């Protein structure tokens, strides 16, 4: 290959790289556009009544937000969502780490079968549980209560699986050394196991929080009164209340997106790792 053609191919691949990068960046902007559009609509008073609002509102107004928080119990709804998401996350962290320790550090009869049963519960789609769980919650008088939303999510087979995998990578020699030093299970658990699997715990936290924050079908069935609703439910009913007041509806969307967005910015590494990790069998 002469040096002449060599340079030519290099310029060609360079041009190709630039073109490809531009496409990727333009695509990313297109991806984010709906969010930007949502934000600008939420700041346009009377959006949707007459004309299409402009991307940069000429007279930005917070009326949409004001109306949202005065005419609906939206502040309460945000607190409901945060409270439930935090409670579910904490519950899953506790129950899953304990179970993972049981599976990872003990040998006992029936262990394989029990673990397989855990995994089996992961395969059952939630729709199957819809009717029986609803009836159970009705019998327990837990309809329209936070506890009714919370209970089915306090344990997560996925969480147990994730943490067990992480725990298996912590060398047992560490526990054995601690046992010789006279440490009990609690000491081993809190001093050796937990500090060594913080990334996995972070991943599970993010997932638990995210799925609670975004969950829709189950809260839809359990929660009735307006001030018990979670964000997705309140959002879904905004449309009925504010049919064409798109600034109010989009304000609601923005309010629901911001907490998750903040969490995402801080935990991006764990979110993407977690998703990718679950994709690697």
């Amino acid at each position, binding site marked *: 290959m002469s040096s002449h053609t060599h340079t030519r191919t290099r310029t060609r691949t360079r041009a190709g790289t630039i073109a490809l990068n531009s496409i990727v960046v333009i695509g990313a902007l297109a991806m984010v556009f709906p969010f930007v*559009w949502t934000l600008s609509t939420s700041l346009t008073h009377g959006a949707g009544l007459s004309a299409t609002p402009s991307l940069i509102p000429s007279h930005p107004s917070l009326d949409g937000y004001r109306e949202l928080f005065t005419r609906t119990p939206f502040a309460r709804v945000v607190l409901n969502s945060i409270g439930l998401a935090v409670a579910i996350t904490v519950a899953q962290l506790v129950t899953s780490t304990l179970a993972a320790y049981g599976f990872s550090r003990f040998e006992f009869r029936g262990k394989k079968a029990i673990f397989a049963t855990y995994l089996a519960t992961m395969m059952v789609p939630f729709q199957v549980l819809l009717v029986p769980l609803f009836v159970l919650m009705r019998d327990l008088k837990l309809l329209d209560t936070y506890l009714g939303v919370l209970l089915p999510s306090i344990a997560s087979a996925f969480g147990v699986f994730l943490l067990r995998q992480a725990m298996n990578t912590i060398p047992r020699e560490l526990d054995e050394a601690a046992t010789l030093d006279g440490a009990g299970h609690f000491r081993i658990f809190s001093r050796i196991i937990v500090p060594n699997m913080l990334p996995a715990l972070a991943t599970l936290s993010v997932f638990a929080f995210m799925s609670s924050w975004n969950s829709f079908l189950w809260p839809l069935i359990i929660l009735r009164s307006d001030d018990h609703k979670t964000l997705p439910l309140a959002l879904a009913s905004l449309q009925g209340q504010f049919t064409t007041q798109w600034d109010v509806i989009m304000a609601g969307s923005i309010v629901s997106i911001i907490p998750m967005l903040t969490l995402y910015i801080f935990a991006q590494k764990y979110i993407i790792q977690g998703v990718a990790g679950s994709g690697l069998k």
Partner: protein
Amino acid sequence: MSTRPVTSRLNLGSAPRRNVRTPTRASRHRRHTLIALTFLAPSALPLLVFSLIPMVRAMWTSLHKWNLIGPMRWVGFDNYVQLVKDPDTRAAFGHTVYYIVGYFPLVFVGGLALALALNRAMRGRNFVRGLYFLPVVTSWIAVALVWRWLLNPSVGIVNKVLEAVGIDGPGWWTDPSWAMPSIIFASAWKDLGFVMVILLAGLQTIPVDVQEAATIDGAGAWRRLWSVTLPLLTPSIFFVVIISLINGFQVFDQVYALTGGGPAGSSEVVVQRIYDLTFRYGQAGTASALSWLLVVVVLAVTLIQMRGEKKWVTYV
């Protein structure tokens, strides 16, 4: 209470001290199991009560006529037979398959292209990846509202832009023939980043020296993609196929929020039908039967995929 402590105390005089403090193998084993089960209990009990028992109850309910309030009436497999004949249920399965067939190619080709493009060295790569992943973490309801607004037939931005170039935009979610395509489009937008991340993770497991060896052997970029990268990526692709199919059959949130199954039932999917049967028509038995039918279909499709796995998935 066990008598073991007493016996061991009785032995105290004759046996060496060490034996007292070391319990027999069997009792140590039992104690061991007990401790292990204590660790499992906080998750095992909820899973039993809120997952396993309801599963069995759903099976039982599906063999009855039941309106959620009155007594249950045994009907055997009638609910299943009825469902298979019911035109609305068939339509719901049809819409669900329509959704999967439209959604999967979009999200797969898009996700693969993105994964390949963002696996190269590029400035700000992580930030760009993050932007593509953003819709994945957002709730479907918020996203659906946003899309309802973007695709608003009269004042939505999409139709305005189309109008500007001389195209008369359709009533995206008010026109029966456009409702499902709108749902598909919005879903592909939301899930693109998810597919991208899984394929990226797969790409990163492909050893660099394999690619280099292919380059030295004179393989061009396309040849490397076709003969090296894609075959080695098949395990991740397989995972994407399985997950997309399972999630596709269970599609609900976006349909509920974007179209509510309408207009004129043109986008009613299976899960929506389960929901309607239970809470609108009070047919809990039929709804449970439909949910099991859905499980069977998903399981069958997954098993077929797994059977085909050996033919095209390469594990190194």
